[in-house]
C-alpha cells in the first residue's frame, strides 16, 4: 500500500518538477539547486532536531550568557539555555508558520484568480479592486494589525501572513488567465463543450504552474521575513518557544556581551529567505524568456 502510494507521489513530484524546470536555462537551474540545497538543509535540521540538538531548547543547561564552548557551540542565552539547540528547534517554528501560510494563501488566491480572470464581469472588477488595495498596502503593517487582533500564537501568525499574500497569487493568476483566455487552444476547448471547471483545472492550471512555482517560492521567502518580523515584535510565539525572530529580539540588550546571540538567529533568517528567493529567481529565468 505505502509503496504504491509513495510511487504515485514520486511520479507526481517528478511530473511537476519536469514541467516547472523545463526550459529553465543552466544558470537558472544552478540558482534553483543552490536554493533547494539551502532549504533542504534547514528542513532536515527541523525534522532531525531532537537528534541534532545537544540540549533542550527550553530548559537551562548552563550559566547565563556563557561564551561558546564544546558543550555549547554558540554559547548560552540570558537564561542559560543552549543557543545552538534553540536555533535548531527554532527552524521548526519558522518552517511550520511559513508552510501553513503559503498553503492557505495559495489555495485561496489561485482559485479566486482563476475564476475572476476566466469569467470576468462585475465580480472580477470588485475582487480586483479589493486585491489591488490590499496589495498596495504595506504587507508587514497589515500582518502586524491582524496578528495583534488575533493574539500571539504561531497559527494566528500563519493566518495573518496568509491573508497578506492572497493578493499576490490572485493578481498573478488573473493576469495570466486573461492572456491565455484568448489563445486558440482554449477557444478549441470551449467549442468542444468542455465544462468550465475542467478547462480551468486541466487546461489553464498546468500552463500557470511555472509562474505559480516562482510566486510560491518568492512569497515563501517574503513570508520567512514577515514571520521573523512578527516574532521579533512578539506577535508570533510566546516564550519559551524557540523562534529565530523572537530570539533575536530577546538578545537585543546583550549585543556587547554576547554578539553571537544576535548574529546567529538573524543570519539563519536571512539564509532561509535567500534560499527560497534563489529558487524563485532561478525558475523565473524561464518565465521571463517565454514572454
Amino acid at each position, binding site marked *: 500500500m505505502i509503496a504504491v502510494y509513495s510511487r504515485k507521489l514520486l511520479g507526481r513530484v517528478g511530473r511537476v518538477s519536469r514541467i516547472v524546470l523545463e526550459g529553465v536555462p543552466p544558470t537558472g537551474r544552478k540558482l534553483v539547486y543552490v536554493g533547494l540545497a539551502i532549504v533542504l538543509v534547514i528542513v532536515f535540521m527541523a525534522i532531525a532536531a531532537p537528534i541534532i540538538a545537544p540540549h533542550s531548547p527550553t530548559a537551562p543547561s548552563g550559566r547565563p550568557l556563557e561564551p561558546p564552548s564544546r558543550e555549547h557551540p554558540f554559547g548560552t542565552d540570558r537564561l542559560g539555555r543552549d543557543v545552538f539547540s534553540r536555533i535548531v528547534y527554532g527552524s521548526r517554528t519558522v518552517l511550520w508558520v511559513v508552510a501553513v501560510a503559503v498553503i492557505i494563501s495559495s489555495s485561496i488566491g489561485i482559485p479566486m484568480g482563476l475564476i475572476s480572470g476566466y469569467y470576468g464581469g462585475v465580480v472580477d472588477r470588485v475582487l480586483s479592486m479589493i486585491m489591488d488595495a490590499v496589495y498596495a498596502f504595506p504587507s508587514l503593517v497589515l500582518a502586524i494589525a491582524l496578528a495583534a487582533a488575533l493574539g500571539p500564537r504561531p497559527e494566528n501568525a500563519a493566518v495573518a501572513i496568509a491573508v497578506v499574500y492572497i493578493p499576490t497569487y490572485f493578481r498573478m493568476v488573473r493576469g495570466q488567465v486573461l492572456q491565455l483566455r484568448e489563445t486558440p487552444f482554449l477557444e478549441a476547448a470551449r467549442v468542444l463543450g468542455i465544462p468550465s471547471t475542467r478547462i480551468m483545472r486541466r487546461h489553464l492550471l498546468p500552463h500557470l504552474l511555472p509562474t505559480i512555482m516562482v510566486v510560491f517560492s518568492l512569497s515563501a521567502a517574503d513570508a520567512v521575513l514577515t514571520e521573523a*518580523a512578527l516574532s521579533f515584535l512578539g506577535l508570533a510565539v510566546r516564550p519559551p518557544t524557540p523562534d529565530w525572530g523572537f530570539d533575536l529580539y530577546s538578545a537585543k540588550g546583550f549585543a556587547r556581551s554576547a554578539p553571537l546571540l544576535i548574529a546567529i538567529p538573524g543570519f539563519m533568517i536571512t539564509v532561509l529567505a*535567500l534560499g527560497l528567493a534563489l529558487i524563485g529567481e532561478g525558475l523565473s529565468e524561464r518565465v521571463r524568456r517565454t514572454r
Partner: protein
Amino acid sequence: MGLLRYIALRASLIIPSVLILYTIAFIVLRVLPGNPVLAVLGTKNIPEEQLQAIMEELGLNKPLYVQYFEYLWNVLQGDFGTSLIIRGRSISADLADRLPATVELAVAGMFVSLLLGITTGLVAGLKKDTKIDISLRVYGAITYTIFIPWFGLILQLLFALWLGLLPVSGRIDPGTALEEVTGFYLLDSLITRNKEAFIDALSHLVLPALTLGIVLSGPYTRLLRNNLVVALESNYVMAYRARGVRNYRITWHAFRNAIIPVVTYAGLQFALLLGGAVLTETTFDWPGIGTYLVEKIQYRDYPAIQAVVVVFAFAVGVVSLIVDIIYALIDPRVRY
C-alpha cells in the same frame, strides 16, 4: 488644463482603495477581537456598570454599522478618537508628534536606497557580464532578503558599540538642546542655526537610514541594470554610435530611458519602505509611527492601531498619486 484634469481624476481613484483598507482595518480591529475593552483588560473581573460606562464613553456600545460610519466621519475630519489605554489622550495628537520622525527616516532611507541602487545599477549595466556586474547582481539579490532588525543590530554593534563612531539609538541626544519648529530635527536645527544639534541629529540618523536604504536598494540595482542593458542594445543607441555621438552622451540618453521604470518602482516600493521603517524604528528605538504602533500593540490599544493603518493607507495612496504625476511629466508617451 489637461494635466489638472488628469490629476483630479487620478486623485479620485485613491478614495475607493483607502475606503477598502479602512473597512478591512475596521473589521480586523473592531470585529475580530470581540469586545476590545475586555480584550484590553484581559481576564480581570470588572463590574458590569463600569464596563458599560467605558463602552459608552468610547462609543463601543452602538451597533457596528453606526460605529463604522461615525468613525469614518471623524477620520475624514482628522480625528482618530482617543486612546483605549490612556483615556482621553488624542490619537491624532500622538500621531502628529510621531509623524515627522518617520517621515525623516523614510526620506533618508529612500535617498540612501536610490543613491546606492542607481549607482550600482548604472555601473553593473555599463560593465555588463564582467566580474563587477556579477558581484553587483549578487548584491541586489542578497540585500533583498536581509532581515532588517538583524542588519540594523549588526551595524549598531559594529559602528556604535565596538567602534563608538555613532550613537547607538534614539533620534537625538537627550542633552542636546533643540527648539522644535516643524518636528523635523534636521530642518529645525537648520532653521534655528544650531550646528551642534544638526550634527547630533544627523549622526543619529546615519545608521537607521543606512539599514533601511541598503536593504531596499537591491531591486533598484536590478531594475536599472536590466533596463540599461536593453537600452544600450537598442536601435537608437546604435544610430547614435554610427553618427559618432560621444559615449557619455549616449550613456546619458540610455540612462534617461532606463530610469523611467525605476521612478514607478520607487512609488511601489513606498509600501515596503513603510513596513521596513516599522522594523528599523523598533531596532533603533526611533520615536516614530512604527515604534508607536509596536507600543500600542503591546497594550492592545485598538483605536490607535487602526489609526496607524488608516494613516499608512492614505500615505500609500498619496504617494502613488505623486508617482503617477511625475510619470506623466517625464514620460512623453503618457497622455492626459
